[in-house]
């Protein structure tokens, strides 16, 4: 017994100093670059090699005729508001459609076994492993031909491709954890199929459904390439707006401000999803 406790502590439950340093470095790598980004968004003049701007936005904003930095970001010229509305709208519609078509499939995948199930599951994860550029350009040809390019419908349809695999996996994991005892009991007690769905299955599924929906929304809001191809410059979302601001390879104060605005929904979603999406559930979706 003594030996056992000794070995357990020998394996180590706490971080080694090296790991501590490593986690700090990774945190610095992930978050560090945001500091100069925030500074840049408030800068008016920031010449090389100054470590801080020599003139700030607030000192200049009264003297300039055109809106500067954050004034520009919040002005209609920047199209930030339009892009935000588009992003949220597309994300919501995609999430709802994805949920509707994935729920029945996930139920079947979690509970029934049928011929060709493995092949079907592989087929469902195809969108994750087929390069986006390949699908995007080929679909764009079709969409131009049928007149869906540059429309909301077109963008919403292509957003289904990368979101379906995530939604299916998360919902299947939820159904697997659910078990069918409660449903069977309700049926024995005389509930109809519809009643079972409404009164038993859905309430029990709800946390998982919320997690899947949030994740789908997140994936949709982050899609750049498919939106860029299908939007044809007519419909802008936050990622494509940012792309157009930085595609020259430079970053001025207003572009830095827009970058921060584009980051904001991610931070909000992070705070929400951390409560709903547990690592364990995510693992069920991707660990195998």
């Amino acid at each position: 017994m003594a030996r056992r406790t000794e070995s357990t502590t020998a394996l180590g439950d706490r971080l080694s100093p090296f790991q501590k340093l490593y986690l700090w470095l990774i945190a610095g790598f992930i978050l560090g670059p945001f500091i100069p980004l925030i500074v840049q968004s408030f800068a008016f003049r920031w010449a090389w090699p100054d470590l801080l701007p020599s003139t700030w936005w607030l000192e200049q904003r009264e003297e300039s005729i055109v809106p500067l930095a954050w004034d520009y970001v919040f002005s209609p010229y920047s199209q930030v508001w339009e892009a935000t509305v588009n992003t949220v709208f597309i994300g919501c519609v995609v999430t709802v459609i994805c949920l509707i078509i994935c729920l029945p499939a996930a139920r079947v995948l979690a509970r029934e076994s049928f011929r060709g199930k493995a092949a079907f599951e592989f087929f469902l994860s195809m969108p994750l492993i087929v390069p986006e550029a390949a699908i995007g350009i080929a679909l764009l040809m079709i969409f131009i031909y049928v007149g869906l390019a540059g429309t909301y419908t077109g963008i919403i349809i292509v957003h289904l491709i990368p979101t379906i695999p995530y939604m299916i996996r998360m919902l299947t994991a939820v159904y697997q954890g659910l078990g069918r005892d409660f449903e069977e009991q309700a049926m024995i007690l005389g509930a109809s199929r519809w009643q079972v769905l409404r009164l038993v299955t859905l309430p029990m599924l709800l946390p998982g459904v919320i997690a899947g929906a949030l994740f789908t929304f997140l994936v949709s809001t982050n899609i750049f390439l498919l939106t860029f191809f299908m939007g044809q410059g007519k419909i802008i979302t936050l990622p494509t707006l940012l792309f157009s601001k930085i595609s020259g390879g430079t970053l001025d104060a207003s572009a830095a401000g827009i970058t921060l605005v584009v980051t904001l929904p991610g931070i909000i979603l992070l705070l929400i999803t951390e409560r709903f999406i547990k690592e364990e559930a995510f693992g069920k979706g991707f660990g195998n």
Partner: protein
Amino acid sequence: MASRKTNELVRMRKERWLVMMQLLPVMLVLVLLFGGALVLGVAQSLGFAPWFGVNTFPDLTYFKALWGEPSFWRSLWLTLYYAIAATVISLVLGILVALALVRRFRSKTLYKYLYKLPLMIPYTVGIALAVIMLGNGGMISRFMEFVGLIDDPSQFPQILKTHMGWGIIAVYVWKQTPFVALTIYAVLLGVGRETEEAAAILGANKRQVFFLVTLPQIMPGIISSTLIIFAFNIGAFEAPFILGGGFPDTLPVVAWRYFNDADYTLQLQGMATVVSIALMASGILYSYLAIYRRYERRIGRH
């Protein structure tokens, strides 16, 4: 007896029909979009484009023209190089993060928020961060001046817009390390630490515990996360477009340029590029999975 059997059969058929009906919506969407893209892409790259007045199907000239150019092979190499380098680096960094995350430490809750941030935001944000950090006038360049290593921006080693692609790789790694970490961490939570502890009790050292116990356990997570990020990196467009070194570009950028060329017959060559990307990606992913199957069989799993 016979009627009972028929009843059973009818019930089974009805059930199978129900299963099919529930799978149908998702299948329809994917088959239409995927199948449509696949069929049209392949047909067009083989010379079927009646809407441009081109119809020489089947015709290999577009592939021949594309594959005959040396720049295509340089593009292919660049695409592969960025994708593989970024995938390997993210994998190693991500596994190390996951191994640290299963330990207990102060402010773990906070850290679990922080490291996931890149997962939540678009790649374009990562590109903006790369510009502000790694550009010639960027923060690292300024710090090098501050400590006296350089005294002109032009002396700063070019990181962005070169074919070494450090900027592109940095963006991919920044975005994908958290993804690998999250996937592996989830798998580690799922398997628990009992087998590791058992191995340690039986006298395995840290190294042996990792390579003989932990690594095989997290293998499925490693495989699925590398498949996903590698495929993404092959088809990524925005980072190589903004941070790449210009001609020769990576294949998705090449395809896009062909596609937007004023000479619309080049679109067929663009489609040949797209088909080449898909062929290459599926070839690599397929052999990767095949090797993994053999490994699984060797360690006695299937």
